[in-house]
């Protein structure tokens, strides 16, 4: 179970202005602005739920994920995942966590994908039997078959993303964070990925937080959606409720756009 209570996080950002005069001034003095990335963020996610996390860019989505991953410490508030505080018991906590960053690969570029997988097995200390079992399952469900012996750089984006997802699940985590997993994928790959996430969630009760701009992903997978804007949680409900708020006969995409407008984010 994921619990966040009253989480706040503020960043200091340097100001940069254009022109020769300001550039020279910047050599001698600096100005900072404070950016409130998260304000009083609270929600609870029970085990086995697939939650969609949406909002415009800069709303605070990746800050939330980083706090839940143990990368960042919040300024205020409490957070507990399966009884552990993410940033305190890092090693113990992350061994139960899987993360897929859509735009950054964790696979080695020039060696066969299988080598990357074996390395991950050793990093996470997965017993050989369990590793083989997971690998077989993933290979079948994500249709990885032939290209595990190919270097990652030779794969298409769709193939690579499926390998990325497999890589994140080799150690059998309870919780999965997916950050823009279907970005740039062709239609077939997208469907495969969604199908897989659904099965994974049903079979193994993996809790999933899906950050995405693709509303079809949300439609297909998420029973619950969290809408975040300017650091605050604006909506927390099912897809049906979201669409009901926006207006009749609008697609999910249009509903969400309408909500962005209404909330002024």
């Amino acid at each position, binding site marked *: 179970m994921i619990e966040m209570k009253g989480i706040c996080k503020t960043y200091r950002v340097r100001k940069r202005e254009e022109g020769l005069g300001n550039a020279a001034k910047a050599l001698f003095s600096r100005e900072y602005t404070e950016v409130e990335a998260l304000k009083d963020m609270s929600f609870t996610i029970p085990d086995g739920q697939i939650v969609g996390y949406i909002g415009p860019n800069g709303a605070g989505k990746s800050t939330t994920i*980083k706090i839940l991953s143990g*990368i960042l410490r919040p300024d205020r508030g409490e957070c507990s995942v399966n009884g552990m505080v993410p940033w305190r018991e890092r090693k113990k906590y*992350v061994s139960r966590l899987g993360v897929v960053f859509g735009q*950054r690969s964790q696979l*080695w570029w020039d*060696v066969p994908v299988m080598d990357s997988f074996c*390395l991950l097995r050793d*990093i*996470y*200390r997965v017993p050989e039997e369990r590793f083989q079992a997971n690998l077989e399952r993933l290979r079948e469900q994500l249709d990885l078959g032939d290209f595990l012996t190919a270097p990652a750089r030779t794969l298409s984006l769709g193939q690579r993303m499926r390998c990325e997802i497999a890589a994140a699940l080799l150690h059998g985590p309870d919780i999965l964070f997916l950050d823009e997993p279907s970005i740039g994928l062709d239609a077939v790959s997208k469907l495969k990925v969604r199908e897989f996430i659904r099965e994974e969630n049903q079979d193994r009760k993996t809790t999933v937080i899906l950050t995405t701009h693709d509303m079809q992903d949300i439609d297909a997978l998420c029973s619950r959606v969290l809408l975040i804007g300017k650091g605050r949680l604006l909506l927390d409900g099912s897809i049906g409720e979201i669409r009901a708020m926006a207006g009749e006969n609008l697609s999910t995409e249009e509903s969400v756009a309408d909500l962005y407008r209404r909330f002024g984010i």
Partner: protein
Amino acid sequence: MRLYWKFFSIHLKSEMAYPASFFLSCAGRLLLTINALAGIGLMIWRFGAIGDYTAGEVLLGFGVVMTAFNIAECFARGFDVFSKIVREGTFDRLVVRPRGLVFQVICQDMRMASLPNIVLGSLVILYGARASGIAWTVPKALVLLSMVACGSLLFFGVFLVYAALCFFTMEGLEFINIFTDGIRTFSQFPFDIYGKGVLFFTTAVMPMAMVQYWPLQYLMGKGRAIYGMFPVLSLWFLIPCWLAWRLGIRHYASAGS
């Protein structure tokens, strides 16, 4: 550690996937050492001798620092390119894995192209050891080994400081170059050649002289036996480096990137 060697072999495989480029990289690194040797050679050719040192003694001192540097570069390069690791978000990836952070950063980047340089550095040491006319005994050989080992650790310490600084700022860190490339370049000659100021700095602040100059005096028979212990004593340097690293991580966890 088994996991370490697995990373090592995957790095090796990765770099050797481009044989032509790998070969050129190795050649390039070797050239840097050869250049430095050429520099020493040319100076000797011009001046006949270097201060009170014979060529063999100079080469011995140089070989030690060169080898130590290349060992650090080969095995701990992750820290040397740490700014890239943070900037590209790879560090976040490491935080999300259930392993120690220092270990992971070390495993993150290893420069295989420095391996031949380690061999070359060792050859320089061997040549210098013979040409210098030093009477070798077991204790002296041990001191020599400690010079190389501790030297690598000192460079590793500087890399740690650099990485720690990367957590605070990405800019203006070029000056760390002074302590890595700078020290390595100027260690071509024993540090006392540069004068008392430099000798003091490299003994008390960045104790490279405790790994080159002072034990060298002992080996040459011109210094006290205690100087032979200096390489190990110099490791005090690692404590502030380590503290800086921990401080950097705390800062990152609260300020992000």
